[in-house]
């Protein structure tokens, strides 16, 4: 908002430069050595990687199940049945095969153009028909709140920390969609799982440069504010179910 004539900005920059008199004129930020000798790539793959993710994600008291690709629709139906969820909010680009029968699907329009997510190709599979996308409007907060839950995919999942990352890419929708409903069912494609945090941060770099908002999710909402005891379920979804597919 403020241009170069902002006196506060000028004053703060002058104070900083005055305070840093000990920093040699020729030094650049890159000259300050940072050793990145911590782990930057994992060693696990295949089942071991998926199982570590499932175990760590379940530690947050999420319900995590490993399912084969052809079992996914049945697994989605079973999860919704178990939670008694009849009306589900979904991003308009949710794959058609995830929209099982017997559930009312409430579509939310994709913000912007719904461009590719960090993980690049939609591991979630083909998008739903373009017709469904064009027909959807953005739901109001009240409409999202009134659903029984939300079903999405994800951009990246991190095995070591059991984290799911949404970046608004395919099958993920905007941030409020996964915030207001009390139940979140998330489909994590195996190829989206990385082992370590640095691998996830690297995978998300393109989305970050593009300015896409992100949500990193580690289990259902929780608080430790009362005597440092963890309690699940405050303002975000109180129940998180995860289907690791593939």
């Amino acid at each position, binding site marked *: 908002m*403020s241009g170069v004539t902002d006196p506060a900005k000028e004053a703060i920059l002058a104070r*900083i430069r005055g305070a840093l008199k000990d920093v040699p004129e020729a030094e650049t930020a890159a000259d300050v050595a940072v050793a990145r000798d911590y782990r930057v790539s994992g060693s696990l793959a295949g089942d071991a990687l998926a199982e570590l993710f499932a175990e760590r994600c379940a530690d947050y008291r999420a319900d995590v199940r490993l399912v084969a690709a052809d079992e996914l629709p049945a697994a989605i139906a079973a999860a919704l049945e178990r939670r008694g969820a009849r009306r589900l909010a979904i991003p308009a680009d949710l794959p058609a095969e995830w929209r099982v029968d017997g559930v009312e699907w409430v579509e939310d329009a994709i913000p912007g153009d719904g461009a590719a997510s960090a993980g690049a190709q939609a591991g979630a599979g083909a998008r739903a028909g373009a017709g469904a996308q064009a027909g959807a409007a953005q739901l109001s907060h009240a409409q999202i709140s009134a659903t029984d839950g939300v079903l999405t995919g994800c951009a990246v999942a991190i095995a070591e920390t059991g984290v799911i990352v949404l970046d608004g890419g395919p099958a993920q929708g905007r*941030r409020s969609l996964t915030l207001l409903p009390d139940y979140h069912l998330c489909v994590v494609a195996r190829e989206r799982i990385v082992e370590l945090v640095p691998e996830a*941060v690297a995978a*998300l770099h393109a989305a970050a440069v593009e300015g896409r908002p992100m949500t990193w999710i580690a289990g259902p*909402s929780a608080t430790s504010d009362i005597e*440092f005891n963890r*309690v699940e379920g405050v*303002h975000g979804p109180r129940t998180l179910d995860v289907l690791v597919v593939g």
Partner: protein
Amino acid sequence: MSGAAWPEVPAFPLAAKPALADAQLRRNLGRATSTIRGKRADVVAEMPDWEQLREAGRALKERTLRHLDEHLLALEAAVTARGGHVHWARDGAEANAIVTRLVQAKGVSDVVKVKSMATVEIELNEALEAAGIEALETDLAELIVQLGRDRPSHILVPAIHRNRAEIRDLFRRTIGPADLTDEPTVLAEAARRFLRERFLSARVGISGANFAVAETGAIAVLESEGNGRMCTTLPETLITVCGIEKLVPTWQDLEVFLQLLPRSSTAERMNPYTTLWAGARDGDGPREFHLVLLDNGRTGSLGDELARQTLACIRCSACLNVCPVYERTGGHAYGSVYPGPIGAILSPQLAGMRAAGSLPFASSLCGACYEVCPVKIDIPTVLVHLRDRSNRERAAESLRGKLDPERLALQAVARGFATRGRYERLQKLGRRGQWPLARKGKIERLPGELGGWTAARDLMPIPPQTFREWWIEREAAGDAAAGGAAAGDAAAGGGAAGDAAAGGASPEAAR
């Protein structure tokens, strides 16, 4: 602490007294801090590269701070390019005025807030209230503090001094039904119901920032409850107050801090929710985003080469949880927004020695804080450095400061220890003069100002023969038999060898 004039006696010791006498408070704190200490140790132990991450965190913050002007300009450009507005505030009053003006421009009389230390520091809620704007805290602990018209006592868990029964009573009186139980689940549910409508109707949200990425303009808010997501996603307008030290240069740098912070803070592998956004995004979240960059004393700290590292703090609060002083006194005794070891070095630098000059003394210098600090801030060294600064500033400012008994006593000690001859003469003098004080081989009470030392411990008197005297005698006699007998004497005198070694050896080596 009043924050008024130079305290004659350091203010912390006075403020700590009632806290130490409050058994309930000590039980609440003891239980909470020991729980979190154990959990943190577990999640840190499972990381084989924890020390490398700590070192990288320290180095990244050093890189940030040594080129802060450049990174701030890059952040401003990135946020602006993504549709956000950037404001600069030299101090709290300026930041409060900016935020108040922005809220008033929206024509609303209430805002929802996600917990932010920076806004507590500048007393934003009070400033908004004075302008007729209600700022509702939505973090559970912060809500507990706000409803109880209380003050925060911990960086992460501001209501750590309250147990579940106290919270139940407070909620019964304020927001909840009268039949509320003290089950944490029930209490959390009461907060959920109370805040839900407020989230949905709020048109302006206010947040702090855990990190601000200069490269991409991303702001990161780490939280647990989902209130942070609500405040940063649902309102049409979002205002973020961010201390200028919260920057990291690049997106990649988050790979370090997103590992260090949750494990150090809530002792989890990852906190439940982390929201990252840059500017304003069409169709996703607030349409209008304002970033207020806050100095408020930070550039002063930047100018002190040794104390500058304080600005690397990522507000995890691990140092509070391990501090033997904090665990016993709680946060209120520090009389500062930032309590515990980090508060003891940060507050005097932000608020000035006049307001918080006693805090660097509120430590036993045990070093536990340094060991757990995820960005390796050498808190004990900074504490000693700030003690020196505090004393010097006091002495420079007033005669009373110059004539401070502790200062004079230590100056005398320094002169006495300066040469071997003086030290030995003083020892002899002391041995002759100490008889009215020594009882049964120990001194239990010293007179006057020196009494503070013996209030909690006994002092060994100077023995009839010191180690040095014994040694000289032994050298002169030149045989082991004399040594054996004299050594017995010295031991009976109590700790003589230690006294002499501490006093005698080092000055000679130093000369």
